[in-house]
């Protein structure tokens, strides 16, 4: 009887052995990824050697295996926005950085993205932003895609905002955006329309300079 009781109580805590084996195998296959040489990266990006060193040290410390997967990325990003839910936006951001689309960000992709954002030209930055908004990578930003992005951003705000979020604020925001960006009113925004509209916006151009000194 005791044995029966024992097994009954213990079973709830027992891990599935089969699943563990799979995990172990995965661990074995995920070899440490090493980035290309420092000189190569220096040539490809606009960072100096010291900056690359600092970046890599931080990156390697956080991800000893050399890659960031989406879960970790979402977790990290969520730390910065504790009020709301940052997972959706983090997902889109992850996809924007993951240029090879293999579900993980290597150091090269990480550094390239940062180089564009921090040291790139205005056009480069705008292109990067366009790619962020263009979820299905078809070269056009549709209203649905934009709504998704905007909703994700508003999700990060959380519930308690001032003034309170009433009505369908994301939709209004998207409508305003399209009104500004969509020149030929065909319902989608192309890259050229986007860049043109942004360059006309003086406020935005000024703000672009703000983030240069982040590194």
């Amino acid at each position: 009887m005791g044995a029966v009781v024992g097994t009954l109580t213990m079973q709830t805590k027992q891990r599935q052995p089969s699943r563990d084996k799979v995990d172990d195998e995965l661990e074995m296959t995920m070899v440490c990824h090493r980035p290309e040489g420092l000189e190569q990266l220096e040539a490809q990006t606009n960072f100096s050697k010291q900056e690359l060193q600092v970046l890599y040290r931080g990156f390697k410390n956080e991800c000893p295996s050399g890659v960031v997967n989406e879960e970790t990325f979402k977790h990290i990003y969520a730390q910065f926005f504790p009020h709301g839910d940052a997972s959706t936006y983090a997902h889109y951001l992850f996809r924007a950085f993951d240029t090879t689309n293999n579900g993980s960000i290597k150091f090269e992709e990480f550094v390239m993205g940062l180089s564009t954002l921090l040291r790139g030209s205005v056009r480069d930055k705008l292109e990067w932003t366009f790619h962020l908004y263009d979820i299905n990578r078809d070269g056009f930003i549709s209203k649905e895609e934009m709504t998704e992005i905007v909703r994700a951003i508003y999700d990060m705000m959380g519930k308690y905002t001032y003034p309170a979020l009433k009505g369908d604020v994301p939709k209004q925001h998207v409508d305003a955006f399209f009104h500004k960006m969509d020149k030929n009113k065909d319902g989608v925004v192309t890259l050229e329309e986007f860049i043109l509209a942004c360059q006309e916006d003086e406020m935005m151009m000024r703000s672009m300079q703000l983030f240069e000194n982040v590194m």
Partner: protein
Amino acid sequence: MAAGVATWLPFARAAAVGWLPLAKKTMPKPPVDKKSRNDEILIVNVSGLRFQTWKNTLDRYPDTLLGSSEKEFFYNEETQEYFFDRDPEMFRHILNFYRTGKLHYPRQECIQAFDEELAFYGIVPDIIGDCCMEEYRDRKKENQERLAEDTEAEMATDTPLPPNSTPRERLWRAFENPHTSTMALVFYYVTGFFIAVSVIANVVETVPCQPLKGSKKNLPCGEKYQVAFFCMDTACVLIFTFEYLMRLFAAPSRCKFMRSVMSVIDVVAIMPYYIGLVMPENEDVSGAFVTLRVFRVFRIFKFSRHSQGLRILGYTLKSCASELGFLLFSLTMAIIIFATVMFYAEKGTKGTNFTSIPASFWYTIVTMTTLGYGDMVPNTIAGKIFGSICSLSGVLVIALPVPVIVSNFSRIYHQNQRADKMRAQQKVRLARIRLAKKGTTNAFLQYKEEGGLQDHDSDSAALCLKNRSSFEHQHHHLLHCLEKTTNHEFTDELTYSEMCMTESVGYRTSRSTSISSQQAVSSSCCPRRAKRRAIRLANSTVSVSRGSVQELDTLQIQKSTAGPQSRSSLNARTEDLKLNCDQRDYTAAIISIPTPPANTPDESLPPSPAVPGILRNSRSTASFTHETFKVSSL
């Protein structure tokens, strides 16, 4: 924020470029970071062991000492490094925390030392990694228990009672700690003896004795010597009742006392007797009366006051309540299952003992605990099979929680052993501390005697003074400053008691006037000087006018009765630094001399004012009586 998130912040900020097209308003200005952007290697010197790390590594945790600007306080300009005068071995772990984000607890280190280091470096212990958390928690709990016990032991038993404790408090102390006074010890042993007597009497009562003459039946001794046993029982119950009432009277919190386990046991031990007295000799009720007599056996539990082991056992069982509960629950489940199975298995057999499931409970219990009386045995094959399974599983179920209980008991028992050892050490330690304290104060007095307080030039200072360390000099100077501030001087016990004695002599002779008592209060620390001055003043006292006396009288109302008993208690105290004879908070003390003319002639020691320096002005008029000087009660 979690570890290393700081590394990702620049990344998140860079990605904010993606919000710009959507932004309705201008972005705010970014904070200006004046510090140099390049990462540099910092040198941290901990008691000679040099650690080097990137500045970024330390900046990861900005709310710790090393990550914030607090470390600038420790920066040494000459050597261009941060110097900490702390344990270098521990620092290794602290630095590893910055590097890896996980704090590990080194098992060979003392938990308190580790905690102190963490507190110094501003690291909260909650972030200890899972690998080391359990060990850390266990040792911390153990340490805290130990400390709590020590403080409890300090406060509870051997501290001397405050001098003005009521008899009730003394009584309670005597009950709780019998070894504090002989009376308590005697009482302790007497009650123990009577508990034993009572229990033995209960036992012997039932033993069959030789029958009475003319009868063949064997009587239990209780009925043969009924009167004797009754007398013994009465005596025991009287003692127990008396003890209980005394405890109830002495208890500081009666409600709490009444709810405590020991008090309940006491009540249960004596109630049967009283109920027996009250109940009539009725046939119907005597059955219940017999049941009540069973409760007399609870008197044996009163021994737990006398035995520490019993108390430990009780405490262990209480602390293992969950394990015991689990044991009981699983046993109950097992009993029910097996009893049902056995009942149905043996149902077919003729003349079987397994008449019902509850009847099978007995079989199951006996089998599971491996007693095996053999009064109920299965006959069918199925019954035998299930019976064997039952006995095997019984062993397992009972064996599981027992080690937990045993380890708990062992831990508590060892803790108690430790407590006893600590108490013995405490006495020695306290004596040593008292001696050291006395030494310091004596040092100061000696310093004064050797003329340390006067101004010397370095040559003429006595050699013994020179040899004192600068710390001692400064300390003595401080004490001297205090003396000057209060216009009183330090003295030692002997001179002080002498002074009090002499003053009380004068005090007793003129008890009718409260003035003298008041003056006695305002004491001087230098008895010889006071005596001399008093004699000098004796001549001047007669010139006091009556009016001043009345004013003095009114002023005396403020003073509470300076009774002689305070004096005696003061004499008994070993405080060296006290200046006033009276303990009470005096805000006013009359410095003037005038005494009531009527009662002074027989006084040997006329009232003398307190402060030596002011005595010179004592000859002034009665207006002086109005002045009241604050004598700081030291």
